[in-house]
């Protein structure tokens, strides 16, 4: 097996050079606290949530899982929707390796789609590992989705047209949410949008080795994130598919999936494998592997030409999904 990494896209390589101090490839357990308050996260969360006045923004505290604290939902509604009827919902789960981030991180991507498609964005705050290991994060994400479906009318949403979406750890939690909703016979989302999702706690694919020390969120960081979530169980025989969806043995009966990932990142092989498993289970999935993309490139470098193509593919998929 070659350990030669695929080259980064030229523009993305230049962006990596730019952000390498704020967003280093590695992350150790000791560095989690500093990273939570660091410039990299601020960079991703510091934005205009109204998207120039298109959305009205509300932070709503709603009940969490049974015997657990309340959770916070960021609800962004179009100020002037094109129709009077209930609007589709993009239920957004933020990234951050299970250990960092808040419901502002990466929500700008969901807001851009919603702005184009006339949808509501609901972004869920969930408890973070290692203080709150599995199943706390997925339980919070699940509780937020239940509240959104149950209170759809209240926020002007259509409970039959909920798309669940997330990037990185948020993509992994979104995939787990789809499994959980299927198995608990919960509300059925019409699609799952998994951007560079974090799916496999075993952290042992060719791409995890190839990209060690390179780009964003390398093998060391991935080990930190999964260990924070699962502790001793990480990589062992009894990891729940609701923690690491790559562990699922039955991927049938899931909503249509959109998956994307860069060719030059840790998660490449597990994302491709997950898409393959979805097809092999008779499911519907669209997979994009962007050449030379590092982890989360479309969020860190939205202006880059590869990011533009990636964003266009996402919004095209959503448009087809919501048109049905």
């Amino acid at each position: 097996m070659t350990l030669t990494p695929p080259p980064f896209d030229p523009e993305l390589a230049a962006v990596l050079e730019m952000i390498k101090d704020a967003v280093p490839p590695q992350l150790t357990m000791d560095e989690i606290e500093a990273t939570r308050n660091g410039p990299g996260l601020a960079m991703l969360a510091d934005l205009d949530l109204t998207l120039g006045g298109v959305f009205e923004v509300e932070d709503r505290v709603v009940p969490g899982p049974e015997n657990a604290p309340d959770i916070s939902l960021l609800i962004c509604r179009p100020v002037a929707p094109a129709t009077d009827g209930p609007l589709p919902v993009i239920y957004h789960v933020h990234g951050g390796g299970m250990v960092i981030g808040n419901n502002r991180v990466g929500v700008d991507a969901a807001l851009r789609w919603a702005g184009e498609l006339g949808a509501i964005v609901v972004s869920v705050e969930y408890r973070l590992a290692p203080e709150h290991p599995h199943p706390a994060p997925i339980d919070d994400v699940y509780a937020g989705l239940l509240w959104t479906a149950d209170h759809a009318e209240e926020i002007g949403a259509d409970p039959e047209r909920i798309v669940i979406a997330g990037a990185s750890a948020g993509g992994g939690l979104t995939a787990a949410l789809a499994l959980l909703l299927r198995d608990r016979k919960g509300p059925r989302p019409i699609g799952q949008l998994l951007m560079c999702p974090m799916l496999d706690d075993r952290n042992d694919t060719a791409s995890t080795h190839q990209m060690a020390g390179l780009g964003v969120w390398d093998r060391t960081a991935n080990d930190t994130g999964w260990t924070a979530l699962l502790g001793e169980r990480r990589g062992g025989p009894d990891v729940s598919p609701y923690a690491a969806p790559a562990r699922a043995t039955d991927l049938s009966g899931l909503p249509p999936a959109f998956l994307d990932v860069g060719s030059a990142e840790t998660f490449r092989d597990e994302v491709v494998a997950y898409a393959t498993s979805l097809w092999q289970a008779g499911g519907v999935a669209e997979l994009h592997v962007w050449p030379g993309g590092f982890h989360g490139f479309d969020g860190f470098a939205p202006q880059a030409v590869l990011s533009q193509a990636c964003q266009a593919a996402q919004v095209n998929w959503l448009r087809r999904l919501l048109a049905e």
Partner: protein
Amino acid sequence: MKELAGRLTALDPDAGAAVRVIAYFDRLTEHRAGLEALVRGAAVLAGCPARLSDAGRRVRLRVETDGRRRDTEQPPDPDWPSAALSPDGAPALWLERAGPPNVVDAVILERAAAAIRLVLDRTRGRAPSAHADDPALVETLLDATAPEQIRLHAAGRLGLDPAAPAHAVAPLGGPPRVLAASALRAPVPVEGRLPASEDSARARPAAADNGSAGLALPSGRVGVGPAVPVLELPGSWAAARTALRFTADGTPYSPGPRVVYADELGGIGLLAELVVPGAEPPPDVRALEAAVADAPWMLTTLHAVASTASLRAAAVEVSVHHSTLQDRLGHAEALLGWPVRTPQGRLRLQLALTMRHLGRT
């Protein structure tokens, strides 16, 4: 990037920001990024639209701060900060921002322009006229020992069609040149004249008036080799250097054609092999030198007789009355020791004048 880089200029325009800009463009260059990525980098880092416009290479593109390309027909505002792609060139890269450029803008423009220049040189090549004088390429093309593929490549770089004939050109005291045959008119043999006369040079003027300086014959004394396929240019070069020896300054002290075409020399060209510059001159040349030393009008008058169709034309050429010319020629024949008004004597005079030329160092 969006916040960190976009806010770069909003931060104090300190060295840290400049260092990041330099690293950004260095990395783009290292990964051989294209023009649009470079202009996009300038737009995103500066936080305003950036545009590239180079008429010579027919490149025009404009990128806004969201990274999307939106070209425009509108001309750039001369007040915008700008950079040229070469030290003395016209502005080609602009930041669409009013007011004086700050330090970071200046660094962005400088680094982006340098990176763009590299891409253009790599992908578009330099304009052919810029290559026409490239001495290394011409030298390769004229070197018979260089491999054919290398010579064909050099021809291409010089903007020559490998299938079309070209001339090697030897200017006095200048580097060799190569000109496509299409840039020069076909030779016009002039009956009754010595080959390579000034008239034939006029019949094939330097191409300066066709608007392309790169294709013009150099000024001054020039020998032109025959038009040949590009791989035979080493032979044309040898002939051009021979032809150069037949040229003159075109002054009263050195009358004769400044431009000589090798393929018009005919058998006269063989004289070049017989006369070694600086060697002891043959008797007819010594007699000619003695005659020239005798009177200031001698050289121009004898040259006129040798290079025009009739004595009447020769009289017009040197602006004297026909009878004056007859008097002068009588004096010259006495000094030379042979007649110049008979066909044989006139040929002997032509040969003496030519050998005098070839014998000079």
